[in-house]
């Protein structure tokens, strides 16, 4: 009896996954522990290994296919064995879903993955997203074979042509009329350029020729190919959708203060000399956690009718990687000492850099910090992570001329900007929050107690 290979559930909130690559093909021998395929969720790419031994009899979900978690994607068994006509039902209720370890497949490792853009990390509630790439028009073009052949021969896109055939079908004379109206006969193109355009399925009518007398050359085709729309990764699409949703549906407002980091920077240097490698991020994370306990409304969620005050602080920390940005989450940050906070986030950062973060380590945050301090920026604003009430944007610490006791002095200044959801946070609260944060960061005696 062949064994079904099910799509694993890599994260608590993951409801569907896409197979990006099959590493085995039908007929291949499969050993326990062999990597069968690679999947992509909205957070990460990972490899899925087999728990069975035998032969990969049938692939049900091809590369690029998206299926609900637990759906059967393939069968492994002995050659010649019959495959059950109807695979076990897909899409069980998420609540009833067993843990990953309880399934016949296991998430083995994780590849580095882009998880979010500059500030808004992708996390908790899974959003619905379209599985059809935006690039492909879903409407099937009604066109006669002769008309289609002519369009192909002419290397043009027939979609904009108005059809005059039965039911608005595009017929050959429509293509001819279209070509004439567009001055196709005047189009000049070199033979190689035409060949390349046909191979790349470009529309010659949209390409500007830069050769002699406007002739389309190989260079023009190369430019057009470079400008062709490319499908975004599924992850990128999810990010786009979430950020757009957040920024267009959440009334953001921004409050900035300058924090005098001179004393803390100096204190950090003395700690470093004592082999206590606390980072500025650690201090900011601790200060934010303390402030969130003081201002629970900032650590909240809303649906526009109700507000949830979270009793715990799950702190999202955006990490910049070569491949993009990931946002690991420090759970229950309010329970941690500065030392523990440092160790936890350092471990998460390390995992993030090596692409070892598990989806659950990238979800469930209640507040997020985006630190661009190392990227030499004066100030920026971040987009609130959906499901949260605010996000803190931290900029670089630079030497500035500031007025202190009516004297102009050089101080190490850092701008922080809170993006708040005006549905639940008013200006006064945001101002109090950022000033409380500023006070904590500037109060070196506090840190001497916390270290």
């Amino acid at each position, binding site marked *: 009896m062949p064994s079904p290979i099910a799509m694993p559930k890599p994260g608590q909130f993951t409801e569907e996954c896409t197979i990006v690559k099959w590493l085995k093909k039908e007929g291949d021998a499969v050993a326990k522990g062999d990597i069968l395929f690679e999947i992509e969720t909205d957070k990460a790419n990972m490899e899925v290994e087999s728990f069975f031994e035998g032969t990969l009899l049938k692939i049900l979900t091809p590369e690029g296919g998206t299926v609900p978690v637990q759906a059967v994607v393939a069968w492994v068994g002995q050659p010649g064995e019959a495959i059950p006509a109807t695979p076990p039902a897909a899409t069980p209720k998420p609540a009833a879903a067993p843990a990953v370890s309880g399934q016949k497949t296991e998430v083995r490792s994780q590849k580095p993955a882009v998880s979010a853009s500059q500030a808004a990390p992708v996390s908790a509630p899974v959003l619905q997203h379209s599985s059809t790439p935006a690039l492909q028009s879903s409407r099937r073009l009604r066109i006669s074979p002769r008309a289609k052949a002519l369009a192909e021969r002419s290397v043009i896109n027939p979609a904009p042509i108005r059809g005059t055939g039965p039911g608005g079908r595009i017929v050959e004379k429509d293509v001819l009329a279209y070509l004439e109206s567009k001055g196709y006969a005047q189009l000049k193109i*070199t*033979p*190689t*350029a035409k*060949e*390349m355009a046909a*191979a790349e399925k470009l529309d010659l009518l949209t390409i500007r020729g830069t050769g002699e007398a406007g002739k389309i*050359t*190989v260079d023009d085709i190369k430019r057009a190919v470079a400008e062709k729309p490319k499908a975004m990764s599924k992850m990128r699409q999810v990010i786009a959708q979430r950020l757009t949703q957040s920024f267009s549906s959440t009334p953001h407002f921004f409050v900035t203060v300058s924090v005098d980091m001179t004393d803390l920077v100096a204190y950090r240097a003395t700690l470093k000399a004592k082999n206590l490698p606390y980072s500025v991020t650690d201090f900011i994370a601790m200060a934010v956690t303390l402030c969130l306990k003081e201002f629970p409304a900032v650590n909240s969620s809303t649906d526009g009718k109700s507000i949830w005050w979270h009793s715990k602080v799950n702190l999202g920390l955006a990490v910049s990687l070569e491949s993009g940005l990931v946002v690991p989450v420090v759970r229950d940050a309010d329970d941690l000492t500065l030392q523990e906070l440092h160790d936890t986030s350092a471990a998460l950062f390390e995992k993030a850099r090596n692409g070892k973060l598990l989806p659950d380590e990238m979800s469930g945050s209640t507040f997020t910090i985006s630190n661009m301090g190392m990227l030499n920026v004066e100030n920026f604003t971040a987009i609130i992570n959906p499901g949260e009430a605010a996000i803190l944007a931290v900029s670089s610490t630079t030497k500035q001329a500031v007025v202190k006791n009516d004297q102009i002095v050089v101080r190490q200044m850092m701008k922080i900007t809170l993006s708040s959801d005006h549905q639940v946070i008013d200006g006064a609260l945001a101002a109090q929050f950022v000033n409380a944060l500023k006070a904590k960061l500037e109060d070196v005696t506090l840190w001497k107690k916390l270290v």
Partner: protein
Amino acid sequence: MENFDVVVIGAGPGGYPAAIRAAQLGAKVALVERENLGGTCLNVGCIPTKALIACADAFAHLRDAAKLGVKATNISADFGAMMAHKQGVVTQLRKGVGALLAGNGVKVFQGQAAFEAHDQIVIEHRTSNTEQPTSNTRIKAGKFIIATGSTSVMPGFLPKHARVVESRSFLDLQQLPASMIVMGGGYIGCELACLAAALGVKVTVVELLEDVLMLLDNDVRREVKKHMEQKLGMRILTGKPLENISAEAGGISAEVGGEKLSAELLLVAVGRKPVTDGLELERAGLKTNERGFIPVDEFNRTAVASIYAIGDVNGGMQLAHAATSQAMIAAESACGKKPHKNETLIPGVIFTMPEVAIVGLTEADAKKQGRAIKTGRFPFAALGRALAAGLPEGFVKLIADAGSDQLLGAQAVGAHATDLIAPATLAIRAELTAAELGRTVHAHPTFGEIWMEAAHALHGECIHAAPRKKA
């Protein structure tokens, strides 16, 4: 002081076409030349060597004519008469250039030009090279085009002696030596080596690099070398320098890798350097680069907006036809027409025996760039016309992009190779695919058919060659 729209300095294959083109466009043009109209190319380069090579070719053909049933006895080469033929050709062409310039209303000044400012030069007139200037003329112009060319490099370690010559003096020899060492296996060295060897001179070519004619692909080089060594009987020594050179009344002696060589003459052909002496470029605000060239952009504009530099002096391809192409671009730009960029597809022709020609990408280039290509070769030995003419030596090669089938390069070695490169150049510039070249009807029986055959070969669809055995 006379004022011109455009002043061109140097009357070689860059300068005189630039002057004529500017005049055609209605500009008031002056051309300054310190030696002869036509420059190196016409007087001491391309043209005189081809005149002599034609003589050597005729001699070689006559000697080889027996296989075509033509018997000639007592044939001999009269070097003096050959030189007279050469001189006749040069004089006629030089006069022709003068007539063209006059016909287009270009005012020609004989003398050395020197900048006095970015818009002014002084021309010093001399009655001979050694004398002090006898008079001078100052002229002003809105635009200048510098086309002063290049001259042979003579390394300092070489003895200064009548037996040590560069290409220019070689073309003025009164009689051929019995033996000759050619230092430098570039195209000038190899052309003159073939010319001399065909007329009976015992020739040894010494090249420091790993091979002669390094700009060609290996298979093409091999074909030329085979003829040079086996048919013309010359020695080609590569990868080692020519050392311990001494020149005495009795002859030249030198060493290559420990081996002693001696000959009556040493021909030095190790490259050419730009000519800017006497121009006083700094007074115009111009500087040459570390190699002595005047740097220009792709429209031949120098660092001074009103001054252009074309041809060998700007450090691009040192070829007469490249200079002429740049001349058109510079002259049109100087006359206010919308400038084109310099052409980048420049064919090269080498009048060795057999002739060689090259254009565009080589296989070696493609390999360096990691570019996927397809090549198609076809031998003259399989071409009816070439066999009928008794000229079965050599082949042509096409190089096309493996993906788009775009023709990217071509090389030819064999009879008429230097003429055959023209259609290949046209096809590459027009971005033709190999398939289209293959579909183009080529008249039969002709040498030109070979490109069609090579295009078929590129796709493995040759009619006139057996399919390659599959491994």
